[in-house]
């Protein structure tokens, strides 16, 4: 089974601070995704990547950057964190859009 890990699992940040969420997958999948999940919403796509060096904007990219330095790693960067970015963030990887394997999630609180 695909192994997707995320770090940190929990993070408390201050408004205006920089936050980096990391995701690692060990199954050589080309595609990786970052989602956020808020109460009352399903998962919403922030950024995704088709492979090392590629990043694409998802449905809600504002306030977020992404970095895919290697096949295995995909980071989500909040340059200036705001309380509205308090959420649970999921990373996923997969060989196709229709086959995604999810990490355990990162709970981010911005005070």
């Amino acid at each position, binding site marked *: 089974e695909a192994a997707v890990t995320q770090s940190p699992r929990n993070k408390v940040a201050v408004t205006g601070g920089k936050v980096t969420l990391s995701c690692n997958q060990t199954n050589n999948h080309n595609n990786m995704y970052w989602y956020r999940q808020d109460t009352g919403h*399903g998962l*919403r*796509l922030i950024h995704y990547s088709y492979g090392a060096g590629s990043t694409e904007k998802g449905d809600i990219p504002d306030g977020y950057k992404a970095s895919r330095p290697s096949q295995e790693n995909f980071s989500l960067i909040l340059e200036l964190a705001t309380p509205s970015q308090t959420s649970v963030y999921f990373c996923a990887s997969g060989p196709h*859009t229709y086959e995604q394997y*999810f990490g355990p999630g990162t709970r981010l609180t911005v005070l």
Partner: protein
Amino acid sequence: GDKVKQSPSALSLQEGTNSALRCNFSIAATTVQWFLQNPRGSLINLFYLVPGTKENGRLKSTFNSKESYSTLHIRDAQLEDSGTYFCAAEDSNYQLIWGSGTKLIIKP
């Protein structure tokens, strides 16, 4: 409006009973996936569907692309079926559009 609308938003069932969850699409969905987010927060893939029906144990799912809906049937509900069920549809841009989920509680 919601491109992928799930119903009901919440459901409480007695153990051993059956239920049906539904997703309606306002997009031209090409494929559908169903996920279970368990009480620990983990997301588990249940089904990937092209138009048609799949069955796995007590779960059965149908995707009707012509009528733009998908259903997930749970037979003989067990306590471990509790959690939030999400459907996600693949659109013409090959992106997954997620519903808001159905929270299912199974009571003993």
